[in-house]
């Protein structure tokens, strides 16, 4: 796969833009606590299947954008998303072989780790610690959402031959 010429790269960036959009979209208050980690979801799909184009560098830039958007310290989300990209890249060979539900399980752990780092950074940055268990709820939601994301993005990728 490596060495093939880039094709339809704009689709990837479009999905990232949608991810950022979804992450700030207004939601009812009771659902806000479980808002999926949209950016991380999109990022892990593309790192998994287009690893020669999307990696830690992209993740970092995306994280900076998220930081500005959420008004957190610059670098906070960048660090978290870099970590996600790193872990996915590390497990990439295995993850691609796994069935969907198993991918979900692994990503649950990956997102969980990332979210814990985020919690830790949040507290370091001075905000009072939120309750840990609700804070991990987005991780569960994201992992449950993964199969749907996977199917949708695979459709887009094969249809448009994104490479």
């Amino acid at each position, binding site marked *: 796969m490596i060495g093939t010429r880039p094709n339809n790269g704009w689709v990837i960036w479009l999905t990232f833009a949608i991810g950022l959009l979804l992450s700030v979209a*207004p939601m009812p208050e009771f659902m806000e606590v479980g808002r999926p980690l949209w950016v991380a979801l999109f990022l892990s799909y593309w790192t998994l299947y287009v690893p020669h184009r999307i990696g830690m560098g992209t993740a*970092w830039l995306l994280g900076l954008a998220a930081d500005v958007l959420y008004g957190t*310290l*610059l*670098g906070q989300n*960048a*660090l978290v998303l*870099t970590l996600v990209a790193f872990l996915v890249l590390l497990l990439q060979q295995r993850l691609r072989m796994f069935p969907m539900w198993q991918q979900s399980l692994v990503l649950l752990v990956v997102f969980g780790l990332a979210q814990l780092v985020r919690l830790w950074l949040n507290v370091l940055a*001075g905000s009072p610690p939120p309750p840990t268990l609700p804070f991990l709820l987005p991780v569960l939601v994201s992992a449950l959402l993964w199969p749907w994301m996977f199917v949708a993005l695979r459709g887009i990728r094969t249809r448009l031959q994104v490479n």
Partner: protein
Amino acid sequence: MRLLALVVLSVALMVVDARFNSLKPVRSEMGLVLMPFYWLAEMPARLWDGMTEQITSRSTLMAENEKLKAEALLMQRRLQKLAALTEQNVRLRELLNSSALVDDEVLAAELIGVDPNPYTHRILIDKGEKDGVFLGQPVLDASGLMGQVVEVMPYTARVLLLTDSTHSIPVQVNRNGLRAIASGTGNPERLELRHVADTADIKVGDLLVSSGLGQRFPSGYPVATVTEVVHDAGQPFAIVRAMPTAALNRSRYLLLVFTDQRTPEQRANDSAIAAEQAAEAPAGEATPASGSAATAEPTPAAPTAAPAPATPNATTPNTATPNARTPSTAAPGPSDARGPDAPPSPSSEQTRPSTPPAVPADQGAQ
């Protein structure tokens, strides 16, 4: 290795961003590009609102119109009283030899987004640096204080609400002047008063107004009403809970307040300087002092500030103090962005119409 490099870079960025101001411009430039995301995300709600507005029936509109008219009438009546009371207040303050009350100027803003993090209470508004918004600026809604600006981007600003758990505001009980500090709890309907003595005279239903002691919020705006006072013998202080008067999680239209942040002495000095310059310089010429306003666009500031000293003194009917009668708009304080703000925004208005809207708020002096 790349992970290590990026992690180190992120940590360095975070430290720099937390401790120094050097990254603020970068942030605000990036914000310029990224903030339309909030606008886009709000789009469906906006469209829906617009649609429902289009198809509301005529009778509903007429009923609403009727109601608004009645409300306006009531407000007008109160204002008539207020004009006289303001005059009286100024005269009484003069007798007491204290500085005159300065009227605040406000700028209407609209909410465009809510922070996606459910554990913080921050909102995004559609006015930014270009409109003269500055860091720490107080934000009101129709019924009380809402919070303060914590981040300014070119066309948007982020506002920290009173109920965020990292926010505190100095307040006073309106009934007896008792001072306290109201801290946010992370619950949008509750503030808590810290360190209130068990014997303090505070009751359920008391109105808490901002005391202005922190020099960040203007004094006298309603903040919250006390809902619960618990005297627990086992606790060193009384537990006082209050509910914000502003509709923190419902208001869509907010007001940004431009207070005069100078001390009375500075104000007197400035007005003296302005008077001198008005006497020396030919009318209509930009005064050098006005160029020093710490705003993004000093050039528009100059022409708006300059005509003020040249206009006849009749434009400030609200001040009876001889000193204050000389208009002193030529030199706004360091963070006072009133100059450029007033003309471009049609929505800018005074809180009290007793002063004509065309003139920047009058500034009293000692």
